[in-house]
């Protein structure tokens, strides 16, 4: 008979190994999925994970890794702080949209003036947009005890409608021949989040993501606030005795994650996306949840997970055009990854035992 015994301490070995095992399991079952769709499984996996890095056109795809990875990492870093403390912000998609709207709105307000101050002002506005949107669930939770999962999620749908309204109304390009969407920020020098080194994919969002990673690492490892985050997640009662103020922690975690999501939105809309349009958001806010978990809620892990997830986006696009693999298959693939990770995490906290359980 097989039974489970709780480990006194979570296994460090399995904590590192399970993400790798989960990726392998996803390769296997993802391959089966691709085979079921009538595609060659090995070729599909190679196309998704090998082509962008080492294939013929890798020089084009490698910069994309930074462009797609940066928003994921930026959002996931913020989410991981909350998730560690048991504060579940799952409305990052909404905060991302609001950050983009606030930031782009700030930039477009100055059009066509040129100044070096415009882009910094947009960054501040973007961060503020995300922050204020996350403050709604935070304040409601602190003041009324409302569930932050539901409120932050409802606000995603509100933000999506707001985005539609803005791109059809206030922010619509007056010279856009009636098409929905704002002016293209890529053609407005002061507001353009251009690549710092041309052709490298390195824009200000990537820099911000790196700063966020370092900031989160130092915070969690060295700062009192990081200690408060960790202890609240692991033992809420002990946290109370240690003098952690739960309300302040909620405001901090949700506020930070909102701010980072807002920044991600601003860098995206001012750079790779270029304009506010009805569907400029592509679900980074939700994928970042997978990134945060796959990265073990650890800053370094999140960078690796973010790059892997970016790879599935890029490789997915290639597989779509070359093999006709449907875009939704990649979404299933990403969801599968989270499933396997959660399932295999069993071995981090429990030990398999064979034979009969002894009665004490």
């Amino acid at each position, binding site marked *: 008979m097989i039974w*489970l*015994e*709780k480990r006194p301490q979570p296994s460090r070995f399995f904590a590192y190994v399970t993400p790798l095992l989960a990726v392998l399991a996803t390769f296997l079952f993802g391959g089966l999925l691709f085979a079921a769709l009538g595609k060659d499984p090995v070729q599909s996996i190679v196309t998704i994970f090998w082509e962008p890095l080492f294939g013929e056109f890798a020089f084009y795809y490698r910069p994309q890794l930074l462009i797609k990875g940066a928003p994921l990492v930026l959002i996931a870093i913020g989410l991981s702080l909350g998730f560690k403390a048991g504060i*579940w912000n*799952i409305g990052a998609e909404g905060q991302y949209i609001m950050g983009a709207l606030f930031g782009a709105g700030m930039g477009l307000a100055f059009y066509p003036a040129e100044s070096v101050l415009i882009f910094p002002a947009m960054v501040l506005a973007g961060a503020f947009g995300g922050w204020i949107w996350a403050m*709604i669930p935070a304040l*409601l939770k602190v003041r*009324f*005890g*409302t*569930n932050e*999962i*539901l*409120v932050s*999620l*409802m*606000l*995603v*749908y*509100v933000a999506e*409608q*707001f985005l*539609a*309204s803005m791109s*059809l*109304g206030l922010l619509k390009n007056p010279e856009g021949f009636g098409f929905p969407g704002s002016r293209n920020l890529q053609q407005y020098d002061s507001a353009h989040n251009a690549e710092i080194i041309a052709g490298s994919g390195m824009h200000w969002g990537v820099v911000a993501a790196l700063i966020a990673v370092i900031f989160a690492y130092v915070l969690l490892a060295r700062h009192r606030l990081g200690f408060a985050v960790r202890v609240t997640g692991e033992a809420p009662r002990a946290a109370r005795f240690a003098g952690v103020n739960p309300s302040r922690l909620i405001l901090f975690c949700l506020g930070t994650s909102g701010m980072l999501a807002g920044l991600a939105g601003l860098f995206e809309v001012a750079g790779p996306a270029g304009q506010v349009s009805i569907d400029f958001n592509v679900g980074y806010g*939700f994928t970042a*949840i*997978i990134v945060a*978990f796959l990265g073990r809620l650890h800053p370094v892990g999140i960078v690796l997970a973010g790059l892997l997830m970016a790879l599935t986006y890029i490789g997915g696009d290639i597989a779509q055009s070359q093999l006709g693999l*449907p*875009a*939704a*298959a*990649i*979404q*299933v*693939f*990403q*969801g*599968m990854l*989270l*499933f396997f990770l*959660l*399932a*295999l*995490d*069993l071995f981090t*906290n*429990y030990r398999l035992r064979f034979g009969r359980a002894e009665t004490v």
Partner: protein
Amino acid sequence: MDLSVINPILLIAALMSAATPILLAATGELVVERAGVLNLGVEGMMILGAICGFAIAVETGSPLTGFLAAAAGGALLSLLFALLTQVALANQVASGLALTLFGLGLSALLGQGYVGVKPPRMPDINFGFLTDIPITGPILFSHDPVLYFGLLLVAAVWATLKFTRVGLILRAVGENHDAAHALGYKVVRIRTLAIMFGGACAGMGGAYISLIRVPQWTEGMTAGVGWIALALVVFASWKPWRVLLGAYLFGGITQLQLNLQGAGVAIPVEYLAMSPYIITIVVLVILSADKSAAPGSLGRTFHASH
């Protein structure tokens, strides 16, 4: 703007139909939560039910078979959640989110060939002369069978939880899983069954949207109804009749804003479309003071090691 185009009787009849997907999903989730499990994957199970129901109804030409397939699809997906949380003892919040993300992807994949297809229509129940009675006729006797099934389901869940042994055991497992385990009840088995029941209900709720409400298939068409259903369970303090009340309230708001859009009110369409979500938040705020009704073991992992 011409508000007289909104007929109050037809509005009430339509709100009952608008409320049914939320009602089905929330009733299922209520049973799951009363068993002590928080399944945040309602949205994912609904959307999978929507496409399973749609595809099977189109292939077989029978909406009823479609609904059965939707229930089966929802239950199958929820079985994955049961596997994660009951066997692999994973965090319920994370597993629920995973279920939603996976369900959205899978439904998009399955639904590729069904965009723009028209499903077979489910006929309304024929009540004969009752339908012709003014006011009560259109409100009470002019609906499809699934709508009545939803009402029966609420009554059945209420009666089962309140009066039967099964209901008592289910609640015991939800209130204190260690005590229930000590009494010899199979906590994991009972919870797995409850989760599958919730999945089947959510699946049918999704199929109601794709087969009767819209009726069409588009990606992500449930648009947050699953999450509203989750909020509704909290709002209803885990009581079946209050779920019904809440579902009709939200159905009413959804329908009213659609009618206002149709009547050409001066408020932009996008702001009207926001209203159900904003009202959900407002209701959550007003009613979140009372948390005492929550099942004692809600969201906690059960491991029979001691």
